[in-house]
């Protein structure tokens, strides 16, 4: 009983002290922290507070503005070689100074990956980089295979945030070698250079950040931030209301008005930089005629889906593009439309005989995924397509029998390459699963889009790719789902437009607490 009372008292201390502390109630807490191998929506919430990249971007802005981070300056010394000068006063959370060795180690663990989880993450986005090389203690060079139009964008990826070499290698086995076991151990004992150190990580359950006073930049505004998993929506909202937590994540659209009615609470939301999409199998024997797939796409009234499922707060795109993509944002392209009359005509032309078209979805994986599937098959039926929702938990994207299903195309970084470019690359995930074909012509357009150093050339090539998608469709971006956070009025926090989705950014300038 005494211990119980003691814990009770201890648990209440932080409240009494009125320190700069917050508790976040999250639908999911990450089971591990390794920026290199992770690109999940759950994980991306957590990296930015504890880790740094060499180059950072000003996240308060939608357009890309690059700012120094662990590198103070950078320049191309050859078309394929970038030289970066490192900041000299950086220390890791364990007190070790950061040098070129750590940077080269962190980069090469991805550029020349041998640990399979790194291999798969590096391949799709960092494939153009061959190696990082130390020039002196505070200068490194990065070598690319081909001229790279996206240097800063790719150098600021979460996957190549900087981790300590000596510490990581010593975690298991031989302290001189980087073994798979070291990377696995690192994921439970993460260490970076960011403004908060991970003081406690209980996988899937709880994460505690503490202010790191040795941080090289502006000191963190919070003494301590705790993220606890509260899986149940009702419990999450209640915990916010009772004051047990200060911020909650993943607030469903229908909860927003309930929360806003409470004078002490508010919500902040944004259309996530991620598309929920419908994919169609180009190689299914019954769907090989592109007119059938065009009809499947044209029959879907995405604005109606948005109104019904997202209260109109989601964003429906005209093509596979997002405003976060800056100069490469091309809303003027109209690749995807709603035209039921044309859908009917195409079906007739193609001689559609009423065969059943299945639409696969998991029961709960995507928010509103099942409801959207049901609505879509109803819309199909309005133009004469005999659709059926097939609820199954297995991923069917690599199944030759798959006809259509839901999927998502996240924006891994703010460029069309970070979304469409990864998912629909020649030999990328879609083609390798056998539901999408590319030919030499497509590959040539994709290469021009990916590697042209001239922005207009890239835009033109992307427009050509979108024309291919229109003529022989395999994907329909449905909408960017609307994601909300709710918090006490005393918390000044909102998702920043320059981040990838879901980042909980508690750095200086991103969050403050009023004294109420």
């Amino acid at each position, binding site marked *: 009983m005494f211990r*119980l009372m003691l*814990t*009770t008292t201890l*648990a209440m201390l932080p409240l009494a002290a009125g320190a700069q502390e917050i508790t976040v*109630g999250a639908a999911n807490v990450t*089971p*591990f922290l390794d920026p290199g191998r*992770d*690109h*999940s*929506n759950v994980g991306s919430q957590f990296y930015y507070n504890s880790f740094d990249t060499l180059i950072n971007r000003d996240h308060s802005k939608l357009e890309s503005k690059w700012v120094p981070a662990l590198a103070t300056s950078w320049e191309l010394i050859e078309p394929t070689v970038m030289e970066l000068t490192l900041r000299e006063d950086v220390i890791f959370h364990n007190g070790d100074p950061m040098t070129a060795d750590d940077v080269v180690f962190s980069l090469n663990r991805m550029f020349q990956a041998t640990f*399979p*989880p790194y*291999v*798969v993450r590096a*391949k*799709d986005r960092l494939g153009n980089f061959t190696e990082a090389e130390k020039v002196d203690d505070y200068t490194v060079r990065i070598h690319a295979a081909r001229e790279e139009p996206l240097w800063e964008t790719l150098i600021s990826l979460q996957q190549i945030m900087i981790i300590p070499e000596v510490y990581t290698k010593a975690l298991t086995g031989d302290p001189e070698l980087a073994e798979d076991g070291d990377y*696995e*151990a690192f*994921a*439970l004992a993460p260490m970076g250079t960011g403004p908060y150190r991970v003081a406690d990580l*209980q*996988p*899937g*359950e*709880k994460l505690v950040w503490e202010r790191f006073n040795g941080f090289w930049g502006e000191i963190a505004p919070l003494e301590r931030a705790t993220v*606890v*998993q*509260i*899986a*149940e929506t*009702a*419990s999450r*909202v*209640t*915990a916010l*209301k*009772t*004051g*047990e*937590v200060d911020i909650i994540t993943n607030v469903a659209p229908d909860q927003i008005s309930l929360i806003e009615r409470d004078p002490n609470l508010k919500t902040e939301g944004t259309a996530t930089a991620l598309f929920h999409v419908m994919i169609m199998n180009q190689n299914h024997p019954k769907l090989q005629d592109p007119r059938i797939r065009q009809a499947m796409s044209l029959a879907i009234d995405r604005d109606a889906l948005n109104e019904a499922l997202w209260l109109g707060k989601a964003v429906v795109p005209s093509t596979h593009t997002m405003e976060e993509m800056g100069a490469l944002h091309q809303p003027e392209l109209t690749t995807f439309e709603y035209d039921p009359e044309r859908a009917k005509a195409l079906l007739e032309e193609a001689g559609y005989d009423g065969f059943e078209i299945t639409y696969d979805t998991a029961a709960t994986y995507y928010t509103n995924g099942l409801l959207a599937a049901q609505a879509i098959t109803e819309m199909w039926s309005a133009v004469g397509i005999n659709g059926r929702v097939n609820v199954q*938990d*297995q*991923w069917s994207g*690599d199944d030759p029998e798959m006809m259509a299903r839901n*999927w*998502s*195309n*996240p924006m891994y970084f703010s460029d069309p390459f970070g979304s469409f470019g*990864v*998912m629909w690359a020649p*030999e*990328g*995930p879609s083609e*390798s*699963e*056998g539901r999408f074909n590319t030919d030499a012509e497509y590959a040539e357009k994709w290469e021009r889009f990916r590697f042209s150093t001239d922005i207009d050339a890239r835009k033109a090539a992307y427009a050509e790719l979108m024309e291919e998608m229109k003529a022989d469709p395999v994907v329909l971006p449905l909408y960017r789902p609307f994601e909300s956070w709710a918090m006490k009025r005393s918390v000044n926090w909102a998702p920043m437009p320059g981040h990838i989705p879901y980042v909980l950014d508690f750095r200086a300038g991103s969050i403050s607490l009023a004294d109420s």
Partner: protein
Amino acid sequence: MIPYLARVLVKAVVTLFAIMTVTFIATRFSGNPIDTFLGEGLTTEGRQALIDYFQLDQSLWQQYLAFLRGALSGEFGLSFVDRRPVTEVVAERLWPSAQLLLASIGLTIAISLPLGVLAAVYRKSWIGSAVMVVAFAGYAVPAFVLAIGMILIFSYWLDWLPVVGSSTALHFIMPTIAMSGVLVAALTRFTRNAMLDVLGQDFIRTARAKGLGEMRVVLRHGLGNAAITVISVIGLQIAGLAAAGSVVIESIFSWPGIGQLLVNAAIIRDYPVLQFGVIAVAFAVVAINALTDIAYALADPRIRLGQN
């Protein structure tokens, strides 16, 4: 007594083996873990590399044999996601679940036995009827409805009780009540019926005829004999609660216990955690049942003496 104990133990071991096999098969049929925890956009080669890395490429039969070999030597493997031994992952969740279970059992016994006895003794008065109405109502309300209802009233509206976690005594109140609800209702009814049965027996009349006080008749001779039924019911109900009850309640209250762990592991298909978690729960259920059998034998001489 020894042959009886041996029979109980053999039964327990066979049950555990069957559960391990069924768990293994059921988890494999639920889909591929690679789909869930590595995010989207894997190429076929990338997927294959990870399947090899996580050793998911062996045939089911090989995996099963490896699993059994590991189980016999106490090695249940590493979690796919956080790469810790699953024994460690599950172990840190056991105590919070056990705390909640013990609190619920304590609360249930503290409420049900007196209520059941009261309902039996005053079966013809309004007291007996009132107890039974409450018991039936409690039996009809599912635990999650009770839990959400309490959250709405005591947290959302009144702001008296916390909803998240297990850190203080206050945190125990709602989950304990929600866990106990159905159990209290069931046990009260069983206690009442067992007491009614016993109180109508000849030896109770004899006890009264000897001039014993009513209190002593009811508690010593009545409840003492009704205990056999009551113990077996408690055993069964606790086993059921340990197996399934905690999953829902722990999820609702973010209780860092094994139920919540199992839900998460099932969603992301972390087979090793799921397998060992289910086995740990099954072991608890089997152990509780075995203990119940033994307690039953201790309470009833006919069982421990009459088996041969």
